[in-house]
């Protein structure tokens, strides 16, 4: 018995010591001391980004999701491009200069000479014609991205004038044409390689091009392991050259779990990572980590269903009142933790003609008194008694929806519900998965208000105004609100089919003054592009049109 007790004692003490060690190590993270000096740079010539979602394809004629386009922009070049965080100026890329004819439809591009694809094949005008025609012919069935070019181009548009001159005659003037040419769909592919690997078949995606990429851009594809990582290596034949500071290798990892991305960033395994707003606190003040944020073109919207069975939703004064009920500041502060900017109308800040929207000042603000005034004047008074309170609309509940898993929309929905109740409007907040949510929005009228967002295709207001407030008959009403106004349609088309800045500006201003006073949308805000990054990462700048341009990045301490 005595020896057993001694053995027990020793084993017990040992067990306690081991547990204590784990506890101490675990809690040491909570009280981590600031390291002195800058941490040693990990993987000095490799840029590592941790993100959610992975590319669907590397074929520029098919790529439409942001993850795919991110890599396409770094493997391929377009005729024109953007630089740094400048969204106003279009710069030369594979085209060194260009002109537009007096008809506003004929564009002539003079191409850069001496450029090679990463496999050594020379680049010339035939690759440009092939690439653009390929998009139109292939008409990607998987993504539908071809519409971006086909809205103003067809197979007769592109002509080769000489090996380094291409002419594009649009089928109609398009004010945002150069912006289209800077988008990933207008990337230039190697005709020889594509022809050797499946060629172009009408209305059919090229399976080889989905997972292979030969471009003129600064990087080439090294390997792509689905749901794991995609790795790019520097293209030694890149026409921009490699003098100066550039990373040699790019690793983009797909990591669904936020904690993994946070730990990777904090440890230096990641140079750049997507961190959800509510988790930014986990990287704040960490040694060697900073939070980057800038206005993106991603907008947050509330949609009104003017075709709802609740016919009061068709009344513009009701929708104006609801626009005053919504608490925009709460959305910014509580739902988005401060990472949301006010949005006055359809055009986000940074995009041309933003100032045509009340000079960037939102028309609506959180004003319950104003909301009540509008509703009372419209005859929707608080007359229905229910459980001791008086409600409007015969106590009919407004159906508010958000898609499950979206924490920001959930918070906004619940806040909206509270504010509606305070002025006597009953509401029901419901949620469902994304595919079901889309089904409800597009295939039913069984909703009154939903939250949605929009991201840019290219840097032109036509990409926002037309789908948001154009009528369905005019190719708009993307959100199925059922709203339409003939004058707004007229203004949208006027701006679309014109290259004159003045005409476009006047058109968008006129359209704004109409649709903001008969709102089909609540313009909640413009998202901040917020990411965590290591302080050793240099050369990074955010451009909503080209999210990542790895060629500019390098790792060093300033």
């Amino acid at each position, binding site marked *: 018995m005595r020896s057993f007790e001694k053995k027990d004692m020793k084993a017990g003490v040992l067990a306690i010591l081991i547990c204590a060690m784990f506890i101490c*190590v675990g809690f040491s993270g909570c009280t981590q001391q600031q390291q002195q000096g800058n941490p040693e740079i990990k993987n000095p010539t490799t840029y590592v980004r941790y993100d959610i979602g992975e590319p669907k394809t590397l074929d520029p004629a098919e790529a439409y999701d942001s993850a795919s386009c991110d890599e396409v922009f770094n493997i391929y070049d377009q005729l024109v491009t953007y630089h740094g965080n400048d969204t106003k100026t279009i710069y030369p890329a594979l085209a060194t200069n260009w002109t537009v004819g007096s008809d506003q439809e004929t564009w002539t591009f003079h191409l850069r000479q001496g450029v090679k694809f990463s496999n050594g094949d020379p680049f010339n005008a035939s690759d440009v014609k092939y690439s653009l025609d390929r998009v139109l012919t292939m008409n990607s*069935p998987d993504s539908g991205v071809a519409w971006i070019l086909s809205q103003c181009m067809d197979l007769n548009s592109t002509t080769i004038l000489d090996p380094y001159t291409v002419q594009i005659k649009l089928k109609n003037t398009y004010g945002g044409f150069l912006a289209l040419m800077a988008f990933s769909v207008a990337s230039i592919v190697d005709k020889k390689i594509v022809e050797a690997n499946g060629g172009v078949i009408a209305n059919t995606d090229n399976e080889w091009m989905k997972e292979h990429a030969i471009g003129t851009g600064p990087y080439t594809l090294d390997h792509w392991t689905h749901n794991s990582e995609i790795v790019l290596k520097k293209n030694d034949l890149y026409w921009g050259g490699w003098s100066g500071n550039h990373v040699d290798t790019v690793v983009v990892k797909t990591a669904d779990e936020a*904690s*993994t991305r946070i*730990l990777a960033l904090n440890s230096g395994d990641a140079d750049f990572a997507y961190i959800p707003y509510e988790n930014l606190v986990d990287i704040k003040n960490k040694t060697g980590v900073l939070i980057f944020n800038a206005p993106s073109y991603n907008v947050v919207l509330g949609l009104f269903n003017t075709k709802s069975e609740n016919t009061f939703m068709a009344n513009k004064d009701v929708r104006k009142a609801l626009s005053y009920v919504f608490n925009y500041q709460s959305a910014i502060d509580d739902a988005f933790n401060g990472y949301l900017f006010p949005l006055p109308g359809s055009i986000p800040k940074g995009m041309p003609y933003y100032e045509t929207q009340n000079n960037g000042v939102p028309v609506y603000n959180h004003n319950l008194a104003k909301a009540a005034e509008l509703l009372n004047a419209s005859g929707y008074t608080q007359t229905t008694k229910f459980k001791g309170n008086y409600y409007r609309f015969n106590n009919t509940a407004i159906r508010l929806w958000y898609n499950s898993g979206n924490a920001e929309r959930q918070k906004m929905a619940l806040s909206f519900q509270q504010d509606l109740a305070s002025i006597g409007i009953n509401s029901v907040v419901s949620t469902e998965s994304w595919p079901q949510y889309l089904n409800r929005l597009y295939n039913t009228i069984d909703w009154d208000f939903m939250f949605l967002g929009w991201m840019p295709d290219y840097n032109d207001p036509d990409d926002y105004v037309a789908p948001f407030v154009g009528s369905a008959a005019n190719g708009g009403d993307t959100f199925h609100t059922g709203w339409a106004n003939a004058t707004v349609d007229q203004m949208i088309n006027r701006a679309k089919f014109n290259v004159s800045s003045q005409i476009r500006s006047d058109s968008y201003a006129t359209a704004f003054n109409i649709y903001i006073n008969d709102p089909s949308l609540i313009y909640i805000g413009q998202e901040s592009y917020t990411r965590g990054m290591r302080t050793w990462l240099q050369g990074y700048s955010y451009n909503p049109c080209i999210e990542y341009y790895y060629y500019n990045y390098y790792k060093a301490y300033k």
Partner: protein
Amino acid sequence: MKTWEYIVRRLLLLIPVLIGVTIITFTVSHVIPADPARAFAGGPKAQPETIARIRAELHLDKPLWEQYFYYLNDLIHLNLGKSFLEERPVATALAQYFPATFELTIFAMIIAVPFGIIGGIISAIRQNKLSDHITRIIAIVGYSLPIFWLALMLQYVFAYQIPIFPLEGRLSAGMTSPTTFTGFYVLDSIFSGNGATLLSSLHHLVLPAFTLGFATLAIILRMMRSSMLEVMGSDYIRTARAKGLSERTVIYKHALRNAMIPTITVTGLSFGGLLSGAVLTETIFNWPGMGRFAAHAVLGLDFNAVMGFTLLVAIIYVIANLIVDILYAVVDPRVKLGGG
């Protein structure tokens, strides 16, 4: 019944099982009111032609029973369809993800089975001693700890605070995977003579395999302990001791074989369960396996992927159960396969 006849009969029974599984899964996934075509086509940015094409490809415009027969027809021709979320054939996706999960599972079982069995034996033969208490605590901790918590803690402690293991993935960032022979990075590294990827793949396996293995270890340990205790109290064990046999012989030659049978059941089912993919572990450790693939498919209503995954899991479970039954016969000669 001969063993091979039993195996063939069990494999043939797989067919009605799979049909049943497809009917149930197909019906449940397709009756949800949702618009997967639009979701696949890009949500609000989806072009009408693209949506229409996807709907036609998935036969969503047809009655449910007709959609099912289209699916069955494809299945008979060994076509699992296309994953719209990944835009590649489901078979190709499964061929990549299944070896990743299988490799992880094997290593998890390498941790769980020997330690679980040995721990169970020790616990049983030293009942109510300190070693029994410690192993029982380990078992309780093992199956009580939420697996995601264990994964996060291991990651935090051993990949971040004391960075002796990698944070995530199958290989170091940027490392090219070995030439594919089997899809198992460890084996493929050996076959291709690539020492760097062999070391990296083994290094990356430690934390996720331990996470998965620990819970399974706990289950096996408890089962082994309780079945050993039951067997050790049997008359024939008392007789064996009375005959003067060594304790080692009594335990390992007489008691263990009988005590193994329930443990084999639990081990087989655990193996099958792990092979169907551990979503949480794979998500936290960014392991590109079946669990993550299935989770994405379910959340995105990627019908073909859901069906393909479910079919594969059904096959895995049937084969796992078959192996368990055969092992019964091996361990216990009294067991006759087929009941004959």
